[in-house]
């Protein structure tokens, strides 16, 4: 057990170091960092002084070490374009992205699970066929196209909802939220549905297939033989047993929701981290790019680490396998 945790943890650290190396390589070797920081009228002596002050003449390993130490403390330097510390920019944008992602995840769960249960119970029903067809179309439509269609329908033709930005936000000091104002909540509707749709079809299909599998098992037949009400069987016995994989997948998908937020934020000009990153790519704003790279990698590594450890704790078979492999190896 301890060996597994240590091995898994070391692997995570290795991934993070690799990503950090890429981020650092970008920062150090794409263009001259000094040229990107100072204006045209800075003299050569001043440039050399700055170079010396920033330690850009030090050996590679020393510089990389310094980069990692700074990154761990959340310092990624100054954005070339915004002329402000990158960590401030990200802190400013983080609430927008997280709010969008969490609302989208909730929508996906609250709509996807009931749809999955329904299609699982009524396999041949008319509504089930409609749901399944819609989900196939939902998988084939790229996220950004769904966003554009929603904008066209509700923003341009019907004029019900705002098509870009966050609306009015309330500043709580350390967090800005759009949930407390009417315009903020309205602005959230279309982006969150766009982001939720793909995950929703995924959850629906997952719940459906899990339900179909569980409904075939002996204990469900036994519950029916005992004369329990359909409701109690379907929800008390069947649904409960399908929820473990659903929760795991949703947990894993949280990372990809934040990644897909890049696309949604671009479509709706949502002022989050994803939009910041896309603008950084277009303007070759390296410090912002490397910061985002490290952050998203950290996010994924943590989620995967937690899921793996939970699996290990829940599933005893994994433990047996690893000892067998260990003995042979």
């Amino acid at each position: 057990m301890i060996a597994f945790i240590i091995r898994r943890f070391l692997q995570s650290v290795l991934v993070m170091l690799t990503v950090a190396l890429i981020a650092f390589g970008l920062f150090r070797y794409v263009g001259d960092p000094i040229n990107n920081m100072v204006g045209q009228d800075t003299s050569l002596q001043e440039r050399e002084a700055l170079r010396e002050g920033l330690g850009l003449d030090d050996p590679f390993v020393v510089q990389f070490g310094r980069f990692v130490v700074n990154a761990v403390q959340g310092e990624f330097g100054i954005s070339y374009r915004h002329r402000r510390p990158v960590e401030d920019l990200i802190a400013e944008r983080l609430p927008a992205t997280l709010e969008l992602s969490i609302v989208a995840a909730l929508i996906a769960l609250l709509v996807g699970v009931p749809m999955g249960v329904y299609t699982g119970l009524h396999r041949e029903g008319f509504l089930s066929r409609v749901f399944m067809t819609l989900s196939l179309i939902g998988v084939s439509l790229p996220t950004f196209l769904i966003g554009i269609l929603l904008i066209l329908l509700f923003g341009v033709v019907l004029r019900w909802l705002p098509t870009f930005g966050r609306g009015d936000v309330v500043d709580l000091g350390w967090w800005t939220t759009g949930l407390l104002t009417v315009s903020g909540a309205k602005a959230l509707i279309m982006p969150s549905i766009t982001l939720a749709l793909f995950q929703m079809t995924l959850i629906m299909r997952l719940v459906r297939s899990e339900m179909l599998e569980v409904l075939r098992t002996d204990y469900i037949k036994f519950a029916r033989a005992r004369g329990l009400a359909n409701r109690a069987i379907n929800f008390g016995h069947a649904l409960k047993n399908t929820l473990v994989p659903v929760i795991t997948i949703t947990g894993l998908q949280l990372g990809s929701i934040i990644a897909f937020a890049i696309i949604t934020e671009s479509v709706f000009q949502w002022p989050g981290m994803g939009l910041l990153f896309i603008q950084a790519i277009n303007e070759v704003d390296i410090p912002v790019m490397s910061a985002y790279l490290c952050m998203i990698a950290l996010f994924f590594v943590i989620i995967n680490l937690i899921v793996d450890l939970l699996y290990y704790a829940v599933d005893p078979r994994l433990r047996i396998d690893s000892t067998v492999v260990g003995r042979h190896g």
Partner: protein
Amino acid sequence: MTVGAHLVDGVRRFRDSDVYYSFKRSPVTMVAAVVTAIFLISALFAPWLAPHQPFDPATVELLDAFTPPVWEAGGDPRFLLGTDDQGRDMLSTIMYGARISLGVGFAAVAFAMVIGVSLGLVSGYLGGAIDAVIMRVADIQLSFPAILIALLIDGVARSLLPRDMHGEVAIYVLVFAIGISGWVQYARTVRGSTMVEKNKEYVQAAHVMGIPPMLIMLRHVLPNVMGPVLVIGTIHLAVAIITEATLSFLGVGVPPTSPSLGTLIRVGNDFLFSGEWWITIFPGAALALLVLAVNLLGDWLRDALNPKLR
């Protein structure tokens, strides 16, 4: 046998095969195949089939800009689906766009296939430390969404290249990024089947005969593990097309000078609010239709080739 006899024989064998039988039984698949074929033909022969030459400045009139589709008020019979902001015929730009989208898609799939199949073969046949390293990397890559990896590779590659080169090399960067983001599926499948094939007698025999491992992998194992690879390839093609369109839509893909479907949607998006919906909706519909058709074909192929489902 002559070439003609071979052909006739091949056609007969195909007509009698299970695959053809299941194809004939599924009307949805037939429609999907027809749609895919139409896209492939119009993409391949766009320069001859397209009603206009949208990227030849001599034939484009700025006066024709923003013409709505034929059936709307103000439509022009010369432009079936209307024109964009520069007076280019939408139908023609979509045909040329599909050419780029499909081209990048096929190239990216081929690239991913070559990397994935080679690594899978090596991993499965040699085993040991090489296998462990390759599969570890695959595991790690699989924990990130493919589109994010493609976006990151694309972004990093762009910042490495000088700005004025972006337009020229954009397509190669895209193929590289999408290819790298998709090799894992191939490698895992091929590794699995290679490990099975490795222990079969014909491989053992080849080994005993002293044929070098490299040659055994390529000549003996490879042909026997390619079946599932083609299925993955078809499904991957849909994913690759979506990824390309998404990156182009985000402005980090194909430049507007030779637009793909995604670039067309991005350009048209600016005119959505002023009522010129057709500039973005038609390329969008074309993209959705293409991806849906390829997805349906891939699903069908997977089921038709899977003996368990018969």
